Each structure stands twice: as C-alpha cells, then as structure tokens.
C-alpha cells in the first residue's frame, strides 16, 4: 500500500501528470516529456541529446489550454500538401513519415489579470474623407477633371485618468515566444478551455523560461496595449498613437495557458529538421529541403552518360570516313552526349539554390 502511494507521487510529480523534465544539450531548452520516455530529438531544434534533468518551474499546473482544432486526419492532409512540389525530395520528407513522428507539443503563455489605475495621454485619430482632384490636359482635347475622395485621419490630443480591471492579458512565458509566434502565427485565445490531465497526455510541454518577475515587461506591455485600446474606444476614435500610461498595477493574478502545436521531424543527410504545425490554424513552420545527395548522383550519372555518348559519337563520326552513314549517327550521338554533359550540373545547382532559398 505504502509502495503504491510512493509510486503515485512519483508519477504525478509534475503538474499532477506523468511528466518528467528533459533538457536539450544542443539548444538548452527544457521540456516536459511523458515519464519513462526518452526523447530522441529535441522537438524544438531537432537536435540532441535530450536527457532528464531538473527544471525550475512553478508547481501548480497550467490553468487553461487552447484545444487542438486540427485533428490528426487534418494534420496528415496539411503535411501532404506541405511536402508536395519538392524536386529530389529526401526519403524521409513524406507525409506518412512526418505523421508517424508527429506528437503534441504545448507552448506555455502567461495570462495576467490586474487592476490598472493611472493617468494617460495619447493622440486619437478620427477618420474623415476629403475631396481632391486629378486633372488631365491633352492638346486639342483640353482639360478633363476627376474628383478623388481620399480617406484621411484627423489627430487630436487627449488626456485622462483610468481605473480599469483587465483579464487575461497575454505575456510571453518563453524567451523565443515572439520568434515562435512569427513562425506559427497567432492563436485565438478566446477558444481556451480549462486544463485537464488528458490535454497533456502523451504530449511534450515546453518548460517556461520566464517566471513572473522576468515576464513582467511583457505583461506590462500587454496591459498597456489593452488600456490603450480602451482609451481609444472611450474617445470614440478610430485610431490611437503615442499612448503613454503612468499607472499602478494591483491585484495581479498570473495564470498559465498552453498553446497547441504539433511537432515532428525528418532527417536528411545526417541532419535533423524539425517541423512545427500550429494546432489551431494548421500553419506549418519548417524547412523544406531537397536532397543534395540525390541531386548530385543524378548530375553525376547524367555527366558520365553524356561524356560516354560524346566519345562514342566522336568515334562513330571518325568511322564515317570509311562508312559514311556512321558519320550521321555519330554526329547525332555526339550532339546528344554534349547536351547531356552540359545539362548534367542542373539538378545539383537547382537543388543547391532551392535549399538556399528554403533555409
């Protein structure tokens, strides 16, 4: 009985879920992976090794999670489309392989509630329309005039005081949050639901690298943004700029939200390439590589065949001095061989350029 209790405590050691902290020696990021499972590659950088290691993080589990809107069937379709149209595609860059390796990958995000009290100043902009003109003159035809209605913004200063509560202002929990969002696109946080153990079962969770203290600048910026938007609404304006807020922030409450992502990878010539898919809108982030090995072999074969044909054609052309019909055949083979030899580098160069653009 006592052994069973001890076992349960071990299993539910992290956020009450069977998770253990893993650390990537290559990128230095920490993840929570299913306990007892060894990660072959880091889901973020695709490299390794990834080894169990303690991670500093809050004990409480996340409060909320944005559910996956992309099912595995949909994911297969998305990856199928993503892998199409690659010349000399690496053997592993196939939807089936990527699907086999795909797993749920959850990214943490802080949500901050708080009371903001202070004074603000901004320029608010009101849209209006003005009339302008474009006149044309042509010799013999005279002038013709066209009225153009232009949209313009009238900016006016406003100041005021503010005492408002804000809920769920999003603040990054990761150092590379902005870069990740740039790759994956935005998430619709309105779709969030309560956290459950099932939500993280079998998935890998990125360990937050920013705690409350270090995440505060991001939270502060989010609260200021929310306040600015409300001040714009208060003024009945269409735009706001130069928003400055001097305020006190009280009753701050931090909660954690997990964002849904799929992580998978493929290998090409000893290098592992990670692929991330936004689990809500299906946007794919990853490098589409072409196989340089395949392209080089193709180029080599084409070159060899071309040279051989060129030599054979030349030989037949020489024999044409004795047997004239051979000269014609030799000439044709010589030209074809020459064309093949000349075009042989095209696959290698094409793939090199494709990879350069993709990386």
């Amino acid at each position, binding site marked *: 009985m006592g052994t069973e209790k001890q076992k349960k405590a071990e299993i539910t050691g992290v956020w009450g879920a069977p998770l253990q902290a893993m650390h990537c020696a290559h990128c230095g990021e920490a993840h929570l992976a299913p306990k007892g499972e060894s990660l072959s590659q880091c889901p973020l950088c695709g490299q390794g090794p990834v080894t169990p290691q303690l991670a500093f993080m809050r004990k409480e589990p996340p409060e909320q999670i944005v559910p996956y809107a992309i099912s595995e069937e949909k994911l297969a379709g998305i990856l199928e489309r993503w892998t199409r149209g690659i010349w000399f595609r690496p053997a592993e860059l196939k939807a089936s392989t990527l699907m086999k390796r795909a797993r749920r990958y959850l990214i943490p995000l802080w949500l901050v509630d*708080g009371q903001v009290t*202070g*004074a*603000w*100043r901004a320029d608010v902009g009101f849209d*209006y*329309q*003005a*009339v*302008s*003109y*474009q*006149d*044309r*003159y*042509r*010799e013999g035809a005279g*002038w013709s*005039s066209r009225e153009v*209605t232009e949209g*313009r913004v009238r900016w*006016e*200063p*406003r*100041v*005021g*005081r*503010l*005492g*408002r509560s804000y809920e769920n202002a999003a603040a990054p929990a990761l150092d590379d949050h902005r870069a990740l969002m740039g790759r994956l696109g935005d998430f619709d946080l309105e779709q969030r639901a309560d956290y459950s153990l099932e939500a993280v079962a079998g998935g890998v969770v990125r360990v937050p690298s920013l705690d409350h*203290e270090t995440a*505060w600048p991001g939270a*502060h910026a989010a609260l200021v943004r929310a306040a600015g938007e*409300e*001040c714009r*609404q*208060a*003024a*009945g304006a269409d735009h706001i700029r130069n928003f*400055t*807020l*001097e*305020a*006190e*922030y*009280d009753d*701050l409450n931090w909660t954690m939200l997990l964002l849904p992502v799929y992580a998978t990878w493929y290998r090409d010539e000893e290098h592992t390439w990670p692929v991330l898919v936004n689990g809500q809108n299906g946007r794919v982030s990853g490098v589409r590589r072409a196989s340089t090995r395949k392209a080089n072999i193709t180029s080599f074969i084409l070159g060899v065949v071309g040279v051989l044909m060129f030599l054979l054609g030349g030989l037949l052309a020489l024999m044409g001095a004795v047997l004239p019909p051979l000269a014609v055949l030799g000439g044709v083979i010589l030209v074809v061989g020459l064309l093949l030899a000349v075009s042989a580098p095209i696959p290698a160069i094409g793939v090199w350029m494709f990879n350069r653009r993709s990386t």
Partner: protein
Amino acid sequence: MNDATRPTTLWPPPEGFVPVPSLVEGIELYAPAPEEEEKETRTFKCRHCGGTIAYSAEQRQLTCPYCGGSQAIAAEEVGQRAAEFEFTLETMARAQYGWGEERRELACASCGSVVAVAPDALTSRCAFCGSNRVHARDVTGDLLRPTALLPFVVDQERVQALVADWLGRGWMHPPELRNVRALQELAGVYLPFWTFDAHIVADWKAEVGTERTKQYYEDGEWKTRTIIDWNWRSGRVHLPIDDHLVVGTAHVSRVILSKVVPFELSKLAEYDPGYLAGWQAKVYDVQLQDAWEVAKEEMRGRAKNACHRDTGSSHVRNFRMQADFADERWRHILLPVYLASYPFEGRTFQVMVNGQTGSVAGQKPVAWPKVWLVIAAMLAPGAGLGLLGLLTLALGGIGLIGLVLGFILLVAGLIGSILVFQKARASEEV
C-alpha cells in the same frame, strides 16, 4: 507591483483641456476646449460713457467718438498662419447652405427695434438709435465664417484726400474733376475673399523641338537654314501655390478691383467682430465650390505654364499633362475696401480704394475732345510727311525717303493712338 509608478507628469491635464464624455466606464477623458462660438450679437459700447464705439482705422482699435475712450482688440496678427480648412465632404455639403436665413434680421438691443438688414449685410447701424450691432457668426458652428481679415488702415479722411488726388491726375480727364470734393456714399466695406492653397504635381509629356542650323549649297552659294529636331520628352513639375485669391462676391466691379489689389496678406489678423464695428461687411455670394472651380482653373493654367517652361524649348507639340492636386486648403477672409461714387455732369462714377494700401481705382470721365486732339497730333506727322514724300516722289526720286519715314511715323502714331484710346476707354469702364 515591480515598476509601477504613481501618476506624476501626466496629471493634471494641460491648461485648456476640458472634460469630454467617455464611452467607457472607468476612463476619464479630457480634450482641448473647443473654440467658443459667439452665439449672441455683440454690442460695442464705450466702457466710460456708454456710447457706441467703432473700429478706428487711424488708431487701430475700438474708439468712442463721444469721449475719446478706446479699447484694444484681442485678436492677434496671424498673417498666412490664419486657419485653413481642407475640402472635407462635410465642408462641401455645408458650403451649399451659405449663411442661413436668420441672418437677415437684426434686433437692436438698445432700442428694441428689429432692423431689417440687407440679406448680404453682416453689420448694420440701427436706423432708430444709431447703435452699432455686429452680427457674430453663430449658426450651427458655421465653418464658413471668416477666419481672418485685414483691418482697415486707411481712414475716411485720408480716402477723401487720396481720391481727390487721384481725380486730379491725368491729362485726358476734364480739369473740373480737380474740384470734385463731395464723395457720395463713401463706405468702408469688408469684401469677402476665398484663398486657396494646393500643391500640384504635374507630369508632362510632349514632343519638344530643338533648333539647329544647317548649311547647304544652292545656286552657287552657301546658305543656312534652321531645322527643328523633334523628340518625345517628359518631366515632372512641383508647384506649391499659396493663398490664391478669389473674390467672394459678384457685386463689385472685377475691373476696378483688379486695379486696387494686391493686399498684403502677411498682415492678416484673426477674425474678431470688433474689427467690423462701425463698418460694413459683405456676405459672400460666390460659393466655396464655385470659387474653387475658378481658382482651380487658374492654378492648372499656372501648372501648364510651368510644364511648358520645364520643357526648356519654345517648340512644343502634342503636349499632354496630368496635374495631381494635393493638400488643397481654403480659407474665407475679409479684405478692406472703400466704395464710393461721385457725380459729374449728371452722371455717377464709381471709385474703389484699397483700405490697407490706399491704392485708388475707379471710373473717371474722359475729355474726349482732348483725346481726339492728341490722337490727331500723333497721326499728323506721319500722314504729313508721307503726303509730302508722295508729292516729291512725283517730282523726283528724293521723295522716297520722305514716304518711308512718313510711313514709319504713321505706324508709330497709330500704335500710340490706339494705346491712348484704350486707356481713355478703360477710364470710364466699370
């Protein structure tokens, strides 16, 4: 929390900011106070004796003719910084309504009588008590009210002298004009004007001719001729236009007005009803849109000339251009003139005096016998010498010189006569 700071630099609101309604609970809002619109007719009474005061062109302030008291006008000189407006859809719609009907009656606060003023008059003197009432702009926060004006600088006394001097000038007018002293209905009137600004970017394309001379051999000698090489060229001209002036009333003579301009717009003052006290002000009857059409026509003419200059050649054909107007702005201003008339030999002649510069123009009767005499004197030498040359030509070859000289003098006399005639006719024109 961490770096939370107490409000310091942003509160209280800057001076001149007033609370405005907020659409979000918990957010207070302050905005710059709107300019106060004068809803009431202002009365200009002397602080000392209660007499009706008026703006004095001589003293450049409100003065009391009874006790000599004076009051300064608060409006400052703004020159070309005077407020300008864009051609917003709202403005264009409002411009069609003009001043509104209720401006046609003016109640006198002094005696209680209701004075019917001319529909186009902004100021009036009460016919019953002589009180000055200046009708401040009030209807619907009228955007089309004047934003600036040039105050009168030249006073009526000086106008009399200037007109007398002007009447006495010129040989082609009756000498009795020098004795005209009594100007009828001399009135200082603020005339409405529209000013327009725009930045025109004009792209032109045309065949531009370049002259070159070519030598060729013909009939045993070398000759030269001019050849024009045509090439397609294009260019872009930036033309900023500032304060293009269009008169806002059709009830004054454009001919006479064109002779008393220009006005020095750098002296524009902010509109203040005090400047109108004791003076007439004309409401515009040329609407903003119509005035803008006139200005636009003139502006694009200037743009076209600028493009032609940009070609760098006098030989241009197949010219085409596109003028893009940007930053179009307008303002409504009042400019001071004196309108007067004087009787002479049973007829009435009009005079206009620039209330700022004192420049005088108007109709002047012409002593036509004098003019014909001068024309005859200008034509006579040429005609006489030509006739003499013709006679001597019949007698011998020497007359040819006289004939040619006579012809030249006749042509010169003819040109001079036409100029004199035109000037004489223009003197009587309205």
